[in-house]
């Protein structure tokens, strides 16, 4: 009897244990955030004290580990906008390359050049690239240079202007160069100077833009010095974590294609205007973790699911357009599961109030965001691109 009771008790205990284990497993998968990802509005609250990502602002580099580090010059994306990261960390985590802009004369953006006595050919500014290390050293990589990308083996690719000065009425022509180490010599990978912007490495291949008339964007891939081929008309959303694929966006910003970088062949395709829910557009410079891609979208943020041969719109996270009239830029997954997203939100000037930027840290399962303190837009508050150090694909 005692044995029988013992056996029953054991069975009951096993049953309860299995039930608890299953419940815990389910909770582990879904319960921590309450549910699977669903489309809907993001609830934004203030009070993001310490962003989980490194970021730059003005002449400061901010990390959760060491606080603020003084940079050698103020960061600026004046010549790249969101096409390329303002600051990017090397794969060993020790170096941060960042873009700066030296104004050679003030330019009032509301007035025409002629009103400001700016003549054709006048020098207006100089973009430069600098590198900051963990020990606080800060060195100039090159004057007349912009848009950086670190390869896994430590090579630094950037665009180097034919002349350092950005001049009124002139196209800023550059060559794409690759430098082995900060103090190495530059090897030109492009053959003819043009208006280029470096986007990212995809393994040992380099992705870069040609910016044409009317800001037409063409994505190119360089397999090595002088070995260039066009990959797509339009822009890039993200490189896959294994660096073999890139998600590209059509020129009209409505169609996403996943391309194999080595061959340029199309693996999958999505028209976001006919997806569920439909979107007016997506934008470039997102990120890719696992089988998820996040991109800026007309509604706010879009998360795509990539699988073999297919591409689906998994989730749309909408932002209040009155609160975020310019949406968000350069969203990045900040966890390996692809549930946490950090992004920059810019608020344009309005009613005499200057433009500001702030960081958003969002949980796409709970559909909540914490919002950091606003910074003047001209201080270029931006995340440091750390895709080379993480399991994330290039920006």
């Amino acid at each position, binding site marked *: 009897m005692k044995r029988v009771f013992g056996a029953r008790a054991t069975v009951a205990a096993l049953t309860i244990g299995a039930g608890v284990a299953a419940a815990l497993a389910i909770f582990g998968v879904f319960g921590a955030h309450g549910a699977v990802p669903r489309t809907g509005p993001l609830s934004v609250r203030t009070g993001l004290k310490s962003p989980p990502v490194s970021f730059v602002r003005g002449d400061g580099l901010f990390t959760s580990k060491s606080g603020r580090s003084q940079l050698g010059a103020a960061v600026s994306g004046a010549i790249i906008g969101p096409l390329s990261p303002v600051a990017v960390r090397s794969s060993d985590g020790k170096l941060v390359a960042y873009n700066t802009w030296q104004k050679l004369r003030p330019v009032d953006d509301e*007035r*025409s*050049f002629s009103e400001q006595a700016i003549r054709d050919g006048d020098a207006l500014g100089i973009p430069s690239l600098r590198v900051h290390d963990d020990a606080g050293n800060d060195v100039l990589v090159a004057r007349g240079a912009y848009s950086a990308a670190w390869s896994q083996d430590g090579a630094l690719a950037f665009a180097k202007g034919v002349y350092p000065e950005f001049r009124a009425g002139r196209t800023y022509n550059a060559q794409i160069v690759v430098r082995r180490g900060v103090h190495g010599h530059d090897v030109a990978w492009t053959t003819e100077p043009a*208006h280029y912007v470096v986007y990212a490495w995809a393994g040992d291949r380099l992705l870069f833009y040609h910016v044409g008339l*009317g800001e037409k964007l063409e994505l190119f891939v360089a397999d090595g010095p002088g070995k260039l081929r066009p990959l797509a008309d339009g*822009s890039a959303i993200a490189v896959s974590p294994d660096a073999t694929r890139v998600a590209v966006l059509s020129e009209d910003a409505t169609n996403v294609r996943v391309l194999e970088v080595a061959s340029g062949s199309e693996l999958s395709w999505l028209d976001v205007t006919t997806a569920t829910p439909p979107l*007016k557009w997506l934008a470039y410079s997102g990120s890719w973790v696992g089988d998820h891609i996040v991109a800026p979208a007309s509604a706010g943020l879009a998360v795509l699911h990539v699988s073999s041969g297919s591409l689906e719109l998994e989730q749309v996270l909408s932002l209040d357009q009155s609160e975020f009239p310019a949406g968000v830029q350069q969203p990045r997954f900040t966890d390996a599961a692809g549930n946490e997203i950090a992004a920059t939100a810019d608020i344009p*000037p309005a009613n005499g109030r200057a433009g500001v930027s702030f960081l958003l840290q969002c949980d796409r399962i709970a559909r909540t965001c914490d919002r950091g303190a606003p910074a003047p*837009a001209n201080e270029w508050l931006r995340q440091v691109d750390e895709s080379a150090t993480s399991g994330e694909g290039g920006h």
Partner: protein
Amino acid sequence: MKIRALVAATVLAAALSIPANAFAYLTWFEFTRQSNSSSPLTMAWQYGPGFYGTQTWRAGSGVSTDACWVGHGWLPTGYYDLKGHWDNYNGTIRGRVFYLQDKTCWNGTWRTQLFIHSEETADQGQYCPTAGDDPYCWDGPSDYYSNGCIKVSRAGNPSDLRLVHDGWHGKSGDYRHGYFTINNWLYVRG
């Protein structure tokens, strides 16, 4: 008395018969940002102190309303000089084009190589080889969207592009082509 009246009538008739475009008026454009695919582009001319004429067309610019988004957002606000005008431009943008100065947006990002144009071939024709969106063919309202440039319609006869183009020459009396500068030629507001 009859002779005087006849002379006056003749002079008046002669004055009225002179085509309007024989006069050169101070002429400029204004673009009022309302939406990316439908915003008024207005040509204004001053035909006397305090007297202005205007003509307005539907136009578009960008895909998003963030002027700091290179290749994606609409044109930044402010005054623009004209850098040049061509009838048969033959780059990635073709046909009748007005080339604008570069401009910074509100966070300091440079927007460059901006135009007012449409979708036509270098010889001002239409090339529509596919059922999809062709770059030198006005396919419909979706063509108002751009990477940042101001675009007007090439549909109909006369098209808005032709009215903008001919209107500019006719009102301004400026028939130059190629590179030249006109100060404060465009004002973007909104």
